């Protein structure tokens, strides 16, 4: 007996459905960017990564730069970014994305090169590579996903974990006297002369998503100016490791995360530096 027979014991009823609408009758108001690979993502429900992947790919689609964009994926939850973004990509060793991106960009200065890194990857093991790449003013865009935990390894303390925040390796809450305070990456890196544009955004509301999209668009548009590094820090939701529902996680960002990581532009280009574009 097949499954269909099992769940449908009687004859299939004849339904009187209204006639189908054709595609032409609808106005297209939203579509998934063509630069995304049409596949199932491995991310948890409510995770920020899938959303930010999409925003980056929207930027690539809108700017028409699919053929000239090379991404660098990190080690962390977004290690499979290259499975979802339909562009040429390289998977870097943990923390080394900015060094890998330097190798790519220096050889192909006219291409758009970006890294996509989490807080363990960028702010812990890879902070030297990140800081020196920005100090050299590498003309790359760094997309920095800050969700205050190590996601892939299931919720250990990160350099960005909030004071008092419970993680699997800070079970009694982050003790600042023992581990120090969370690193404010955007503020730290904005001090470097090589940083051209530094901003911190989030994606926990429709407005926040729009602002992040705009920030990413700017960061990509500035790249051909060869004026320095663009760093877009994004406060990411991590409901699974925060042990919250997606809605609670979004609230947690507004109520707790932004106290340590205030949103907004930290370093913006001078008007005359961007007048070409």
């Amino acid at each position, binding site marked *: 007996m097949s499954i269909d027979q099992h769940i449908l014991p009687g004859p299939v009823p004849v339904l009187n459905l209204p006639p189908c609408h054709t595609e032409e009758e609808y106005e297209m108001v939203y579509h998934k960017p063509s630069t995304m690979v049409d596949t199932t993502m491995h991310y948890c429900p409510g995770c920020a990564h899938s959303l930010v992947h999409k925003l980056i790919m929207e930027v690539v689609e809108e700017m028409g730069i*699919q*053929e*000239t*964009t*090379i991404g*660098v*994926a990190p080690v962390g939850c977004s*290690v*499979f970014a*290259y499975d979802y*973004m*339909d*562009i*040429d*990509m*390289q*998977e*870097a*060793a943990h923390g*080394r994305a900015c*060094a*890998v*991106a*330097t*190798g*790519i960009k*220096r*050889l*192909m200065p006219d*291409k758009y090169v970006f890294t996509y890194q989490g807080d363990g990857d960028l702010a812990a093991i890879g902070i*030297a*590579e990140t800081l*020196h790449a920005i100090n050299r003013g590498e003309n790359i865009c760094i997309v920095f996903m800050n969700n205050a935990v190590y996601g892939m390894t299931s919720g250990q303390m990160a350099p960005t974990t909030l004071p008092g925040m419970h993680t699997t390796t800070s079970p009694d809450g982050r003790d600042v006297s023992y581990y120090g305070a969370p690193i404010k990456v955007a503020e730290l890196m904005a001090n470097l002369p090589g940083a051209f544009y530094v901003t911190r955004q989030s994606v926990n509301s429709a407005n926040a998503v729009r602002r992040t999209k705009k920030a990413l668009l700017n960061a990509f548009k500035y790249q051909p100016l060869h004026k320095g590094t663009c760093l877009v820090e994004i406060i990411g939701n991590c409901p699974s490791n925060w042990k919250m529902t997606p809605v609670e996680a979004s609230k947690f960002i507004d109520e707790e995360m932004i106290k340590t990581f205030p949103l907004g532009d930290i370093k913006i280009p001078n008007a005359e530096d961007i007048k070409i574009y």
Partner: protein
Amino acid sequence: MAEFKLMKGNEAMAEAAILAGCDAYFGYPITPQSEVLEYLAREMPKHNRIVMQAESEVASINMVYGAAGAGFRTMTSSSSPGISLMQEGISYIAGAELPCLIVNVNRAGPGLGTIQPGQGDYFQSVKGGGHGDYKMIVLAPASVQEMADFVYLGFDLADKYRNPVLMLSDGAIGQMMEKVEFKPYTRPVVDKSAWATTGKPKSRNRNYITSLFIQPERMEVHNLKLEEKFKQIREHEVRFEEINTTDAEYLFVAYGLSARICQKAMDIAREKGINIALLRPITLYPYPYQRLHELASQVKMMLSVELNSGQMVEDVRLGVNGKVPVEFYGRMGGMMPTPEEIVHHLETLIQYHHVN
């Protein structure tokens, strides 16, 4: 007529890199190979090539990863402690099958060790070094000329097999000055478009460089593919030099600087009536096991001479497989044996094996 120049090994290597069409060099200063970065910092910009002093060896090997992954001919060089730092990146490069040239101007260790020549990095070079199952083709120059020649060879082999190639030199070969001829070189045409990340045109699927295969079934397939490549390398790329083997009763086995010293020791021993030959492995991976196995039917004893505590001797014994005694003599810590010292040791061993 050939034109010779008088150069340091490190400089000859750097000049050869330019002539070999190296698009980018990423490095970090460390004695005894800082001349490479200095030479290229001066010369590469004249050829519109990229040279960069990275913030660490960790960064430089990952810059090599990025540039190699984008399809460019690229290299780095360092000395022992720096090469240790690069092992992570080398493992990723091997896993992602990226062609590049890495040069180790070996100094004595362990730890910070000393800046004088050593061969203590043999195991690290030929047996793995980084994590996981991978192999590098390892070339061991014994002269300034070979430090130049093996740059071309190294790049070509790297491209041919999509694998990192290591040139394992030492502080003496890197620092000493000898005559060198830069031979005419034609770069083989290699099509990297099937994998290099140069930007995805509409006409092809995306290229991505990775060493990650999370499903064990796929990981094993990738491992088996790499193993097949290493098998091809073992079958086709074994290189060695042998001197005076025709009538030999004894055999020195030595590479790089040790082989230079053994050549002199061989001359002294032969004047004393000891029929000894020299086998100098040029590739340390793949290793000339087969030739050693053949010579084990001919000679009465082999002596592996190294600037370490006895590393390559294990590979000599693997090749000989118990057929004849394989002995070892070495100095460490940046100290080098004299030819007379080696001959004295040889004579003692011959006496010992004659009595027993």
